[in-house]
């Protein structure tokens, strides 16, 4: 690259002239003429993604600001659901709590099963079937969330209702199962089951990959010492895959936190309460479902309040995802994989 042509080339993004210059100076560096323009275009696309993410945060904050700075009276007069004398924080708090509760329960249900499936596909299933079976689990991820909602509302809720009654009758002393069991089955527990099914394929996909990466020598060493298959898995595969499974679970958590339709269509919502009673109706609502429920009718300050709620969701999921990605990145450095 000569110093004379470097300033003028990025300034001429049109194809033909820069291509002509490239043809004129054929010898030397390949990085000039349209190559240079192309590099700028590609770099620009990369930068555009960073800009988009920044814009998401910026515009949400910009539109949420009026609600954040509004007084309690203004909020309660603009938004139907705000009772007198409730600050934005007092209103969003229970929503965040409901979101976290649903997501954590879903995670608790899904992680053991997903690890089981991951092990099943990587170490237990017949070799030839493994790929097909893995594809079947991936199909769960392909089903749109609105169909999950429809299914959860019309099929799953009636089916699990007797189970919730049984849990309420026999384990009512346990805080999660306390309270009056809802007669409709449209409660947070049902939502968590559906969310668990939805995040299952994500956790499975990642943990399957990590389990497959276990060094063959570790496994064979364990077997040579007389370990049974489970002992081999416990001593060689699981420790190797631990951080991978943790980050997979975090990714699943991120997805469960942001899921809208399944929650919206199944739950009978309740506001302004911090409640652990996952079998009782009208006790919880999640942020995403609340936004979808109220957005169509909202005007003025109510829209700002909804966007402020969305901003809270955005920050929570960003934090969860960044932690998950940081774990993955750290693992890459240590394990020597890739």
């Amino acid at each position, binding site marked *: 690259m000569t110093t004379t042509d470097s300033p003028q080339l990025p300034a001429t993004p049109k194809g033909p002239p820069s291509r002509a210059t490239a043809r004129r100076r054929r010898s030397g560096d*390949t990085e000039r003429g349209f*190559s240079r*323009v*192309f*590099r700028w275009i590609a*770099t*620009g*696309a*990369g*930068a*555009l*993604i*960073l800009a988009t993410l920044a*814009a*998401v945060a910026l*515009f*949400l904050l910009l*539109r949420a600001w009026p609600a954040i700075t509004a007084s309690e009276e203004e909020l309660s007069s603009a938004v139907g659901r705000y009772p007198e004398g409730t600050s934005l924080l007092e209103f969003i708090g229970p929503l965040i709590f409901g979101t976290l509760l649903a997501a954590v329960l879903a995670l608790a249900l899904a992680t053991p*099963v997903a*690890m*089981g499936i991951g092990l*099943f596909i990587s170490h*237990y299933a017949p070799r030839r079937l493994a790929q097909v079976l893995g594809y079947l*689990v991936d*199909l*769960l991820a*392909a*089903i*749109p*969330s*609105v*169909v*999950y909602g*429809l299914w959860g*509302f*019309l*099929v799953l809720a009636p089916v699990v209702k007797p189970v919730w009654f049984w849990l309420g009758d026999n384990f009512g002393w346990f805080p999660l199962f306390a309270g009056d069991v809802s007669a409709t089955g449209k409660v947070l527990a049902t939502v968590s089951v559906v969310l668990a099914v939805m995040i299952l394929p994500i956790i499975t996909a990642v943990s399957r990959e990590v389990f497959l990466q276990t060094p063959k020598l570790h496994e064979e060493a364990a077997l040579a010492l007389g370990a*049974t*298959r*489970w*002992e081999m898995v416990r001593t060689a595969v699981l420790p190797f895959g631990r951080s991978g499974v943790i980050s997979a679970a975090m*990714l699943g958590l*991120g997805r469960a*936190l942001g899921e*809208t339709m399944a929650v919206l*269509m199944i739950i009978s919502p309740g506001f302004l309460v911090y409640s652990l009673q996952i079998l009782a109706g009208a006790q919880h609502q999640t942020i*995403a479902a609340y*936004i*979808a429920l109220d957005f*169509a009718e909202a005007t003025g300050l109510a829209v700002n309040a909804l*966007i402020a709620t*969305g901003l809270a969701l*955005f920050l929570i*999921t*960003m934090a969860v*995802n*960044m932690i998950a*990605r940081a774990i*993955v*990145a750290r693992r890459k450095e240590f394990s020597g994989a890739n």
Partner: protein
Amino acid sequence: MSTDTMDTTERTRALLTSSEPRRKAVDRLMTVLIWAAFVVAMIPLVSLLWTVLVNGAGRVSLDFLTYSMRGIFGGDPSGGIYHAIMGTLIITGWAALISVPVGLLTAIYLVEYGRGALARSVTFFVDVMTGIPSIVAGLFVVALMTIFLGPGARFGIMGAIALSVLMIPVVVRSCEEMLKLVPNELREASYALGVPKWLTIIRVVLRTSVAGLTTGILLAVARVIGETAPLLVAVGVTDSINLNAFEGRMTTLPVFIYRQYSQGMATCREDQLNCVVDISYQNAWGAALVLIIVVMLLNIAGRLVNRWFAPKLR
């Protein structure tokens, strides 16, 4: 001496042939549990697909696919999903039109040019971006557009922008993987012939990986085609056919399903002809069947493209 040897042999044999029964039992129990985990995961899949098939198959007909819901009220069963199908095609098409160039170019940047802090942060934030909740993407577009166009703005292209916020990271991820698979020897051979880098990328790298790229893009489309929440927020709902993405509300299949679901049971007068009480649920199931078929076709097409057109590198 000889009894001693006998003893040792016996003991060793005992150790080798019969490990403790508890260990074996635990091993068997875990095997059963791990198989059970897989079976448990298949129950919802089978139940869901079966329910959609049984409930939807009765509703899907030529009329259902070619009529809109304009002027359909109550239990009238003569409506259809034509407007939703067209809305889905238009909005998803625009989303793909925005996401594919940006996503592909970013992948090219990461694989061919990416060095240093910018590349590292792009990789990291693309990963983080995959986790943006879909409804937040919808809110972002509304927040952006209402600043320029006033509070009531709802039209198709807004939904397409929201979908591309969700789709771009998926495209980047899968395209990046595919471009990394192209062997360096091909690039070097091309440079050795004096081909400039941009032409090498377009004519050698992209052409070698075109099957994988197509797969990645089809799977990304399949992922966003089922999105509901961002469209509910950014595009709104309509019962009529609207083919213009730049004006007026639109309906897509997932939003149609939600709308029918939220209408619930219809009330029929006794003397009313042509009235079905649970018609909205039937409509929802019918649309769900169509949507699932579309998503499955996209998935299968993606995998087949990769299998049939992948270059034989070895």
